[in-house]
């Protein structure tokens, strides 16, 4: 597994096995923050950043846990690292862009419970990636998440102008559209011979 070329790891995480549309990770922010294009792209940026930092930390922690022979602490330490990173990002955004802070609202602290981020840490450990591969993987996953979020936000902005019956409005139509997007992304499977 470790001999995978870097470009393949990137394309795989970004398109072929897109975290949102193929692995169903990070669905909550995907449904929650995809209302506006602007917010969606910034949210994607924040998630990508948290992914990169937590991927780096997770790699260090995993090496450390192997040395002290305590693999059962893996999950607990990963989640603590992610929670602290999110806290850091939150403080950073609050200081430098209060508008963005308000726009993201409750979904910023909820990055902690974004499965996509914990999944990056878990997958890279399971697949035995080295440091560079880990970072490329996290970058690919983050960009893939952002792409899915931005496409969805664009579609939903258009949806706002269409005349829908009350039953379909809201989550139901969003999930249906996500299903169509997911089918579309399956077309990328040919890229890597997966």
């Amino acid at each position, binding site marked *: 597994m470790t001999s995978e070329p870097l470009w393949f790891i990137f394309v795989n995480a970004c398109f072929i096995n897109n975290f949102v*549309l*193929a*692995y*169903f*990770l*990070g*669905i*909550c922010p995907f*449904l929650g923050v995809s209302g506006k294009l602007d917010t969606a792209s910034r949210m994607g940026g924040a998630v990508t950043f948290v992914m990169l930092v937590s991927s780096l930390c997770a790699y260090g922690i995993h090496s450390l846990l192997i040395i002290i022979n305590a693999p*059962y602490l893996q*999950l*607990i330490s990963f*989640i*603590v690292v992610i*929670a602290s990173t999110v806290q850091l990002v939150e403080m950073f955004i609050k200081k430098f862009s209060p508008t963005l802070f308000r726009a993201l609202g409750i979904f910023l*602290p*909820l990055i*902690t*419970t*974004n*499965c996509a981020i*914990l*999944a990056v840490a*878990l*997958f890279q450990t*399971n697949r035995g990636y080295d440091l560079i591969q880990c970072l490329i993987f996290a970058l690919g996953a983050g960009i893939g998440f952002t792409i899915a979020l931005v496409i969805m936000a664009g579609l939903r902005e258009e949806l706002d102008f269409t005349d829908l019956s*009350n*039953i*379909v409005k*809201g*989550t*139901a*139509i969003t*999930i*249906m559209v*996500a*299903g*169509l997007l*997911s*089918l579309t992304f*399956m077309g990328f499977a040919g890229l890597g011979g997966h």
Partner: protein
Amino acid sequence: MNTTESSVNKLSTDDFIKGLWKENPVFIQVLGMCPVLAVSNTATNALAMGLATTFVLIMSSTLVSAFRKFIPKQVRIASFILIIATFVTIVDYCIQAISLELYKALGAFIALIVVNCIILGRAEAFASKNTIGKSFLDALGMGAGFTFALLTLGAVREIIGVGTFFGVSLFGHHYEPWMVMILPGGGFFSLGAWLLFFNWLKERQKKRPTLQTEGEVIQ
């Protein structure tokens, strides 16, 4: 003493039932979507995932409720997550010991129970404010509602997508399975269909206000 106990009990049955239907975590609150979509490709996986989540939910809600007076407000989320992560690690190792096949099928999603919004949501919104008994019943109800939702979704996807139910063939050899229902897209479609159904129910209830109040009186 007796009166307070009975009143708590009376409230508690309601705490249990609301998770099943009125505040169903998946269909009404739309929480914890990731495992719902990812693991509902067969009924067996769905049931296992539902039970594992229910166990974690009950244990962490009870513990959070028991410690609610000792945990300072500033670090409560971190403490909740630590408690949840501990129980998830236990479940992870238990499933690995009981059935390796199931463990491989569920994959990383067992570990990902940690970040299931339902569990943290119930810890924050209910368990940290209520007594142990009430939190236990609330967690039980939410867990049952979650399992029920996962199972309905998993059953639909397995029956249409493979033509089996819990591995038992239903339609014989001539059935051409709809592959798409097993693929990620199918997960979105079937969940969307269920949400449509529940929205339709809600709309219908709104149109008949008298019936609804009657139902509440009976409850």
